Every structure is written in structure tokens, then in C-alpha cells.
């Protein structure tokens, strides 16, 4: 398999892998490293790639496992101290700033969710995967996914409301 061929396969979903990695690892640098690692692993396995019926799902599962391992490992201790990329470049318009602020709140709230809820929310609401795909990727039962998703969405909503109210008061 040539490099261009490989890139054509990988290109459509490499951003998804990165976003998933970032959701779990929070830090952009860590997520970039993780994505790179996954892509290199895929490249090494390129000869077997034809046998996978869904390369994207395979890569996604790899990313998930890799990131969870990362979090479990000792490095995770350092990871939490890493500056997370909350700062947005300043904008002159006050309203725009406020809008952006509340959007970045969602990100912060999502960072606080348990890993499983994070992943479900990421796959469903950001990447718009179907439930069947999420089942396979996360190896979860359909009901468990719905429960986790509902809980995650409600938590984000509640926390968002709290922050809103706090902002007003």
C-alpha cells in the first residue's frame, strides 16, 4: 500500500480520532501525540488493513483504548496538571465574548464528566455516530448507552444553568 492510498483511507476520520483523543486527554499536545501514535500504528498494519471491514471503527477503538491506557498510566498524573486549552483569543465584541465564554463552559463541563459519558457524548453529539456504531466502539449495551448519554446531557445542562445563574447574580 502506498502512502497516498493510506492517507486517502485515513484522511476522512483522522480529525475524529484527534477530537476523541482530546476529549479524553484534554490537552491538545497530548491528543496530537496520541493521534500520531495511532496513525503510525495503523501505518504499520497497513497490509492487514484490507481485512478490517471498518477501518474507521477500528481506529476509533484503538484511540479510545490508547487514551484510556494513557489516563491509567502514571503519566496521567502529570497530564492533569497540564494546562488545558481553555483560553480563547480575545475578541473586541462583548457579546461575542460572552457567547464564546458560555461555549467554552460546555467544554469545561464536559471535561468533568466521567470518561464513559464523555465518550458517549463525544461520539453522539459531536461526531453524530449512530447508536449501533457506538455500541461496537465502546462495547456497551444499547440501554447503557442511552442512560449514559441522557445523564451526560442532563449534567451538562444543569451545570450550564448553574453557571448562567451565577453569572447573572
Amino acid at each position, binding site marked *: 500500500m502506498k502512502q497516498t492510498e*493510506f492517507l486517502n483511507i485515513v484522511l476522512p476520520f483522522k*480529525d475524529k480520532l*484527534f477530537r476523541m483523543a482530546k476529549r479524553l486527554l484534554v490537552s491538545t499536545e497530548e491528543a496530537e501525540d496520541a*493521534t500520531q501514535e495511532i496513525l503510525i500504528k495503523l501505518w*504499520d498494519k497497513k497490509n492487514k488493513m484490507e481485512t478490517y471491514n471498518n477501518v474507521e471503527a477500528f481506529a476509533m477503538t484503538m484511540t479510545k483504548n490508547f487514551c484510556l491506557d494513557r489516563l491509567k498510566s502514571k503519566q496521567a498524573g502529570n497530564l492533569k496538571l497540564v494546562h488545558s486549552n481553555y483560553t480563547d483569543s480575545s475578541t473586541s465584541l462583548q457579546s461575542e465574548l460572552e457567547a464564546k465564554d*458560555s461555549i467554552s463552559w*460546555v467544554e469545561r463541563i464536559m471535561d468533568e464528566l466521567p470518561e464513559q459519558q464523555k465518550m458517549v457524548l463525544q461520539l*453522539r453529539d459531536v461526531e453524530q455516530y449512530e447508536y449501533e456504531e457506538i455500541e461496537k466502539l465502546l462495547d456497551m449495551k444499547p440501554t447503557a*448507552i442511552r442512560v449514559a448519554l441522557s445523564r451526560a446531557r442532563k449534567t451538562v*445542562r444543569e451545570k450550564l444553568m448553574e453557571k448562567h445563574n451565577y453569572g447573572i447574580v
Partner: protein
Amino acid sequence: MELYKIEKLIVKYFEATTTVAEEETLREYFSKESIAPHLEQHAPLFNYFTKAKEERFTKQVPLKPRINYLKWVSVAAIAVFMFGLYFYQPTPAPVTLADEYTQEEIESAQEAFALLAMNFNKGTEQLYHLEKFEKTTNKFLTKK
């Protein structure tokens, strides 16, 4: 889209019973300027998802075809081995006596060996008496 439908969808959304298409409708609704005031609180949520999806992986990945060194090392090893085998010269065959010594030398040596053998045989003949001696001593021993 009518407001009540959106409201319904939001309720369904938080129960996680919406389809992907319905969620898309919600995202679309909240991306617009005119959001009903009582729904505005949900806007950041949906707008965040839209924004989050725009994030790109920009890092270049070095994809070098990894050369299988081990394979080539074994090939090289075999080549060297074959080369050695091909040019290997066995130590020269042991030379015969005729090559190293002259006929005279050999003859004199044979003569010397013959002499030695003769004398050696003489010596062994004498051992016969020793046998007799042993017999007699045995007689003594058994008698006792």
C-alpha cells in the same frame, strides 16, 4: 420549524431518544440568530458541539516505510556464510611417508623398528617364566 416541535425535540434529546437527524435539526435551530428566549439557555450546548466538530488534526505524521532490517541482516548473513563455504580450503591432506622422507631413511627406520620388535619379543618370552612362578605360588596358597 414550529417552536413546539423544537421544545418536544429538546425533551426527547435529554432523554436520549432523538435520532441523529432530529439532533441535527436542533443544532440547526440553535445555530440561527432567532432563538426563542426561553430556549436560549440550551444554545451554548448545541453550538459547542458544532464548534467542537470543526477542530482539526494538523500535525504532520512521519510515515516512513519501516525497513525490515532483520530480514536483510539474515540475507546478508547467509550470503557471507555461502561465500565462506565456497572459498573454504580444507587443510591439505596428510602427506605420505614417501613425500617427507627418502627411501633410505624409511628403510633405516623400518630396520630400527624391526630390531626394536625383535628385542621386545625377547622380553615377552621371558615373561613366560613369570607365569610359571605364579602357578607355583598359587599351589602354595591353595595348600595352605
